[in-house]
């Protein structure tokens, strides 16, 4: 689309850019988290960039990604880009004046899931970052109010991580297990999964 943005970031923040590519028409820059805040400020304030709209922020867990192990070459890791660390925080930005888009990615290792919060640049990142924290446990430093958003405060774990068990219960209140064939209609069985152990 507009490689101009890619080139601008690459030239201005050469040390912080890990890789950059355009895949499926989306321009992507994989950044070091040290520069993400600077890049964001630059992208917002520069007249030629003018990325004034925060579209989205999310995260991806690449645990056991096929071909994503250390032995995988850049080629097998795919053009789509998976930068090699377990987590990636993905930002999408848009400029309503220049009408261009960019995707910023920050690769984070499992052991250190902190990254600067972009709420300092766009307030609209607020809830998106809270969701990424809730679902992936990414810590956004400098976020004014990093609480869980979709789940309840007492929830343990981050359910979109690939190692979070798919089945099982984490009830706030004990769930009454019912004999399936002698159900009392007044009681509600919250178990809706037919494969769940009876």
């Amino acid at each position, binding site marked *: 689309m507009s490689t101009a943005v890619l080139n601008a970031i690459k030239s201005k923040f050469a040390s912080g850019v890990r890789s950059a590519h355009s895949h499926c028409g989306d321009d992507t820059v994989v950044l070091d988290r040290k520069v993400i805040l600077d890049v964001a400020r630059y992208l917002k304030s520069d007249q030629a960039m003018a990325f004034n709209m925060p579209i989205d922020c999310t995260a991806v867990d690449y645990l056991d990604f096929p071909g994503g192990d250390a032995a995988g070459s850049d080629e097998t890791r795919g053009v789509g880009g998976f930068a090699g660390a377990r987590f990636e925080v993905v930002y999408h930005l848009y400029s309503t004046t220049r009408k261009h888009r960019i995707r910023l990615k920050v690769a984070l290792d499992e052991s250190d899931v902190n990254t600067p919060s972009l709420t300092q640049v766009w307030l609209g990142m607020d809830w998106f970052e809270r969701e990424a924290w809730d679902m992936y446990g990414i810590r956004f430093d400098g976020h004014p109010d990093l609480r869980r958003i979709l789940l309840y405060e007492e929830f343990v774990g981050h359910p979109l991580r690939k190692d979070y068990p798919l089945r099982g219960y984490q009830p706030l209140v004990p769930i009454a297990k019912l004999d*399936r*064939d002698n*159900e009392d*209609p007044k009681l509600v*069985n919250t178990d*809706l*999964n*037919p*494969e769940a152990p009876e």
Partner: protein
Amino acid sequence: MGYKVARPELNIFEKSYVPEILKGVGVSSRHFFRNIFGKKDIVTVEYPEVKPDYASRYRGHHRLMAREDGTARCVACMLCSTACPAHCITIEAGDYGDTDVEKYPVKFEIDLLVCVYCGMCEEACPCDAIRMDSGIHTPSQMYRKDGRVGKVDLMALGDLSIAKQGGELS
């Protein structure tokens, strides 16, 4: 291209509430008098007596189609339970010991309370065995277990399927 919507600024007359209230009362009354004396615009359907027409594509209660000899067309290939995004279909396969059909569903159960009526099962069926075109919406149940509908009930809604199958196109 973009254009600004016409945003009304109320004139002093409209600001006095009364004329606009009377206009609204007029609309209400027009509907009232049309419905009580004139041509009835009433859209309510009196349900148990009058049933709304379902579209021909309406996805309702599932049914299992039958062969000419009355057995189920289903051969328990499990594609429907694979395609089901809600995992509501349970099938157990059995062996007829017959070289023509070989495989049949010993148990075919759909949990209607889990089903999301997306139609993926009929799309996935390679034998024209399961369909959702019965035109019946799902009945409500008193107990959860009544929501699990078995092969017999599904066959009872079924019909003879005459779809040709097995490469016998000639």
